[in-house]
């Protein structure tokens, strides 16, 4: 068997002219095919003019926005204290904190401070060319303070998948802890304002308010936990820290979440970290309500396009 190809086979030469001819024919064929295709396609066009696409306002953060936000936070705190005082919760005895005593008078002093603080921040906001913010901070109220009030006073009704959560086993303890949390957050918020505002005068005023809130936080911490000056120092302090932890007996319901006791001097420097609130009755697993209160950020600022509800 011979596999060799004959050497004399004539292969059609493809010169440049031939190549151009083939290209031309291809192009002409494509045009003809395209011309024979269906020319009607797509849907019928709409007649008339549609509405404009809404354009969101720019969320510019400036001194006015920051000061309005602080005014709202101070107002929210004052309103929260008003709710607590009106309910008379602080004049009741606390099973968890038997030595607490009636703190209503002290909280009324705190409330007056926050009312004045809100007015001061609003005055600064107006100076900065912004509208005053005359109600509470909506984010703080809706996402934090109101759910805490509901959990403490009413509990949570049962659903298809979860059991009912009872109202708080000790509202006085929860509310005095809430006061400590709000005072700590107010102090941190004033401190956090310092590097973000443009004027030294605003920083000074903000810190005057923050200093007072920090002292209020320290004082209520000492009322809740007498002798609790410094965190993590001394064996007696560590032992007393667990005072509000309840241990479940064998076969009983799970122990409720421990509630940490506050300290007057939580750290050497002013903290900007979140302040944790734990309160209310435990759910079926013993888990109490827990919130981290943080200094205001982009989702809680009072932008110019927001107004009080």
């Amino acid at each position: 068997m011979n596999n060799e190809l004959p050497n004399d086979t004539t292969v059609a030469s493809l010169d440049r002219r031939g190549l151009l001819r083939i290209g031309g024919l291809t192009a002409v064929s494509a045009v003809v095919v395209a011309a024979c295709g269906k020319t009607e396609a797509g849907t019928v066009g709409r007649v008339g003019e549609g509405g404009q696409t809404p354009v969101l306002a720019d969320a510019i953060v400036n001194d006015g926005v920051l000061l309005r936000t602080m005014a709202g936070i101070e107002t929210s705190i004052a309103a929260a204290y008003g709710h607590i005082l009106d309910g008379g919760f602080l004049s009741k005895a606390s099973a968890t904190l038997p030595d607490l005593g009636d703190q209503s008078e002290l909280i009324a002093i705190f409330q007056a401070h926050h009312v004045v603080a809100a007015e001061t921040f609003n005055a600064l906001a107006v100076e900065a060319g912004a509208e005053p913010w005359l109600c509470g901070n909506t984010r703080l109220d809706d996402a934090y303070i109101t759910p805490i009030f509901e959990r403490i006073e009413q509990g949570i009704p049962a659903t298809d998948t979860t059991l009912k959560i009872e109202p708080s086993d000790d509202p006085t303890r929860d509310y005095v802890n809430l006061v400590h949390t709000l005072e700590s957050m107010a102090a941190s918020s004033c401190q956090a304002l310092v590097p973000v505002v443009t004027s030294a005068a605003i920083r000074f005023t903000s810190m005057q308010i923050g200093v007072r809130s920090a002292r209020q936080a320290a004082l209520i911490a000492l009322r809740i936990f007498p002798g609790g000056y410094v965190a993590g120092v001394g064996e007696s302090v560590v032992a007393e820290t667990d005072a509000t932890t309840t241990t479940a007996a064998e076969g009983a319901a799970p122990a409720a979440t421990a509630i940490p006791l506050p300290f007057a001097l939580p750290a050497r420097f002013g903290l900007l970290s979140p302040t944790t609130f734990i309160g209310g009755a435990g759910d079926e697993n013993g888990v109490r309500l827990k919130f981290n209160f943080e200094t205001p950020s982009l989702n809680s600022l009072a932008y110019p396009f927001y107004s009080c509800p």
Partner: protein
Amino acid sequence: MEIEVTEPGEHAATSSARHRVGRRAFLGAGAGGAALSLLPFLSGRAAASATTDESTTTAATTPPQRPTADDVALPGVVQQVEVTATALYGEAIAIGGWSDEQAVVVTFIRDAHRAYAQSLSGMLGRSAPNNMSQELFDGLRSDFVGDVAGVLAAAQAFESSAVATHGDVIAKLQGTDGAALLASIQIAEARFCTALADLAGDTDPVTLLVDEEAESLVGRG
């Protein structure tokens, strides 16, 4: 496989004559190309000039972050106050007579003041004085070496002065780094006042919350 042509073909001369690029044409093309390639750069420069104008407008309202030249002196004063505080509390601790609880709190406050002095030193760098105000120390030392009740009262008054001092300086600083650091110190020292008053057995909210702040130490020593 590569074919290396070492000798020009017979049409080489004609072809090279037809496609020869003269020096003048080459230079012309080069200049044109350069102009084209510089066009986006030049337009970018124009845009950058506009941005610079804009950022200048912003810079006029945005405070500087680092301490300015004018900012160095005041935090230096504050650092001297903190070093002095560390020395005063050191004297107070040395006299003894403290309960365990009091000793823990006073030692915590002494160490905190040392930390403040060190952090201010870190911020100011070589401009930091790193020494105490001898005049301030001499003026306050006798209050810090008496009986425990007297020392607690003196310490409370001193902390209130320190809070006022920080406020005084924050009101003048332009750089936000320095202001933020002083704010974190001021908040902590405010709490010291309340803790010291409580430690001394005070129960009056007016004293515990320091309704009347002491005078600033700026200019004193």
